[in-house]
């Protein structure tokens, strides 16, 4: 069985699966249940200065598939609404009872040095392994000058990170918001401020749906709604991109990555690790199914590693980073064509109509005298876009086959048709 232990920001964890700072890590009883279920660590729900905030009734909305499967959730909940001291005493207690598990204290404050430093010192004194700066919350707290209102300004990210690093001698994680134009600016600022790790992504700004009877966004609070933070499997592609950008940028080398964003199962976890994540944080999946989902995350990741021959997380961590490049570094001479396995084809015609209406009219549709429908790729017209293979309901029925053309690797900057190439 593979060794799932990992180290991030110098902190050792029995596995890479932590619960993110959110309702599931709100209090002693939840966190203990999570540790009993097998989670390696938690980031305690974000703490602020007293008096604690007051939360709304009606807090979550969901983006549902037609079959009521949850594609994503958004929320308008604020940070911990319990007194700071109550939270800190509970953290101390869990630290004592669960010495092999990680607890990170999440915090936020207004852009004021004294506030950040005093709060950080109090939290560090409770025995947490590290402190995470919540610079990402995109609703409510940002209207009070906290959360994403700081995280959207690189100079403020650097400043708050530096304050906390000066105040405490435990590792600092800076949590980044995706609601920016370039994630690297935030990550570079965190590094400049002294953070050992970045955590990303926080939730994505969103209106998740409109109640067409109330004519108001959901979740609806007494007839009105506000934008909230979007999370769950729908945001995973956004998170993968941002993690990869940080992992492959020369400017952000040396900073660890705690990856967050739509991690629902072991496969998601493996993808983030392959793109350079040192550890992982999960929230929505636990909110949908309970803490027990960590079982399959652990077993699935372990089985995957055994099958691939990876003995430790480090054996495959970041292996996909070197293959993540700018568009300009891709091979223009690569050519791939769709190939339809006629035996496996069930004749639904989806590939044909998708290609015919929206792509390159490269799949013909014929009906034989006996009614047999056949769909054939016209190689000359197929540009290798993958659309047919993606929408085909039969696994492996449409295969994208690389064409052997013996042409050299040729990028756009080197391409003879690039008007800027010869300048």
């Amino acid at each position, binding site marked *: 069985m593979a060794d799932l232990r990992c180290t991030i920001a110098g902190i050792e964890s029995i596995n890479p699966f932590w619960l993110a700072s959110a309702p599931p890590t709100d209090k002693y009883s939840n966190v203990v249940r999570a540790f009993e279920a097998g989670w390696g660590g938690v980031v305690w729900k974000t703490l602020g200065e007293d008096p604690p905030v007051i939360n709304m009734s009606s807090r979550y909305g969901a983006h549902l598939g037609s079959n009521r499967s949850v594609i994503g959730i958004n929320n308008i909940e604020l940070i911990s609404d319990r007194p700071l001291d109550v939270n800190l005493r509970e953290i101390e207690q869990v630290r004592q009872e669960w010495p092999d598990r990680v607890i990170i204290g999440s915090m936020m404050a207004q852009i004021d040095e004294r506030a950040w430093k005093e709060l950080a010192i109090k939290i560090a004194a409770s025995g947490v392994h590290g402190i995470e700066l919540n610079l990402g919350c995109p609703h409510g707290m940002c209207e009070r000058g906290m959360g994403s209102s700081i995280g959207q300004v690189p100079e403020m990210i650097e400043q708050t990170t530096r304050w906390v690093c000066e105040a405490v001698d435990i590792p600092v994680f800076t949590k980044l918001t995706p609601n920016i134009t370039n994630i690297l600016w935030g990550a570079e600022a965190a590094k400049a401020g002294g953070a050992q790790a970045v955590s990303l992504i926080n939730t994505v700004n969103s209106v998740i749906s409109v109640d067409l009877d109330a004519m108001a966004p959901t979740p609806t609070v007494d007839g009105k709604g506000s934008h909230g933070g979007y999370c769950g499997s729908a945001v995973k592609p956004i998170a993968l991109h941002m993690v990869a950008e940080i992992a492959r940028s020369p400017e952000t080398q040396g900073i660890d990555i705690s990856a967050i964003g739509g991690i629902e199962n072991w496969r998601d976890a493996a993808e983030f690790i392959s793109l350079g994540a040192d550890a992982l944080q999960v929230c929505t999946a636990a909110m949908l199914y309970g803490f027990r989902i960590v079982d399959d995350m652990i077993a699935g990741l372990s089985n995957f590693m055994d099958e691939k021959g990876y003995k430790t997380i480090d054996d495959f961590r970041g292996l996909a980073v070197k293959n993540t490049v700018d568009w300009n570094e891709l091979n223009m001479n690569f050519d791939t064509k769709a190939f339809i396995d006629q035996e496996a084809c069930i004749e*639904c015609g989806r590939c044909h109509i998708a290609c015919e209406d929206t792509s390159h009219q490269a799949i013909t549709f014929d009906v034989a005298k006996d009614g047999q429908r056949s769909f054939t790729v016209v190689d000359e017209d197929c540009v290798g876009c993958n659309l047919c293979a993606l929408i085909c309901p039969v696994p492996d029925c449409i295969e994208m086959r690389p064409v052997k053309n013996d042409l050299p690797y040729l990028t756009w900057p080197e391409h003879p048709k690039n008007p800027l190439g010869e300048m």
Partner: protein
Amino acid sequence: MTHHASKAVCANVSAAQFFDDLHMPLGGLMAVKEADHCLYCYDAPCIQACPTSIDIPTFIHQIRTGNVSGAAHTILSENIMGGTCARACPTEVLCEQACVHNGGENKAVEIGLLQRYATDHLMDQISIKDGPHPFMRAPDSGRHIAVIGAGPAGLSFAHRASMLGHKVSVYEAKSKPGGLNEYGLAAYKMVRDFAAEEVTFLMGIGGIEIFYDKALGSTVTLENLRTKHDAVFVGVGLGDTNDLGLNGEDMAGITDAIDFIEDIRQTSDLLAIKLGQDIIVIGGGNTAIDAAVQAKKLGGQNVTLAYRRGEEQMGATAFEVDLARQNGVMVHLWSKPVAVQGEGTVRAMTFEQTMLKGGKLIGTGETYDITCDMVLKAIGQKIEGADLRGLVTEDGKLKVSENYETSLNGIFAGGDCVRSGEDLTVQAVQDGKQAAIAVDVWLQNN
């Protein structure tokens, strides 16, 4: 000895109360789940397999998006009796057989159940919430069409003709509308008086009047209808049944299966249904199955279905034959009735075993007897010719052109009384719809 349907039935129970749905309807979540199973095929084979060409992928997609009334509209715009067809169609040999999932590792989409979900939804909206009829009539054409027969063909014709702006008078021999939907389908396919509800729904378009107890013959004749109206549509179905051609066929205890089914569908007290203890149903079509299964469900002790050929040649679908067996019906194949035994009342039937030789069915000479006190004949129906004099027939049915024109100018025909396809409700509805469109064109030139 004949007894009554006492074992399985409490006192004063009608078929509508006693028989449960053969296929339980889908709830909302199940319907969406099943709709999700549909691949939304392009130029889908299921559409081509439907005699009425319902745009099945579109209506299923509409269920998936929560546009259930829209789904019903998609169905009903091609098949105004989509509710009955959802219940009674042999989908296993029509749309569901064509489902592309059959070619993969999956089971076919439950198209019939989804169609029922959508049509029931809309009909409930109309009947319970007093919603509007989903189709509009074109401006009044000033033309008046007579329809003979208020069965699926006649009513489908009437609805489409009304949509096209014509006034329609329907003459029906019986005292209720619906034809075989009302009288001829097994009770477990049409629970809770659905046939009557559907006619009420269909009539909601307006412009249609039905005259009951007006059989062709004495007061209503083809000729006077033709004189009084701009066009006539004949949708009389098959009013007569085939005989076994055996001596003693008129003995007590021997009756037509179609009459037995009608009695069950129409009674207000199932106890009053005459039921034997040892019942033989003769025939291999869906009517034979409907009769045999209902006989068993009502408490018949020994129910035997005898068919002169093999299972592959049966008109009933494999699903229907399985249904009979699951209900305890004994199926005797390659058995041809050759003699009726009894005196005044049937006591047994003698069957000769048969075989195929060079493609021809021949008797082997070996015979056997089955004791019985009731025989239900389901060996096919034919048109009642007498009152359709003047119309040319071909192979026992009315001869029509591809525009449903009979041999007499201005008289059109469709449904089971013509040879357009299988004798199914869905085919009759298609005939009625297409004939109405053809008559509309004809009227513009006449």
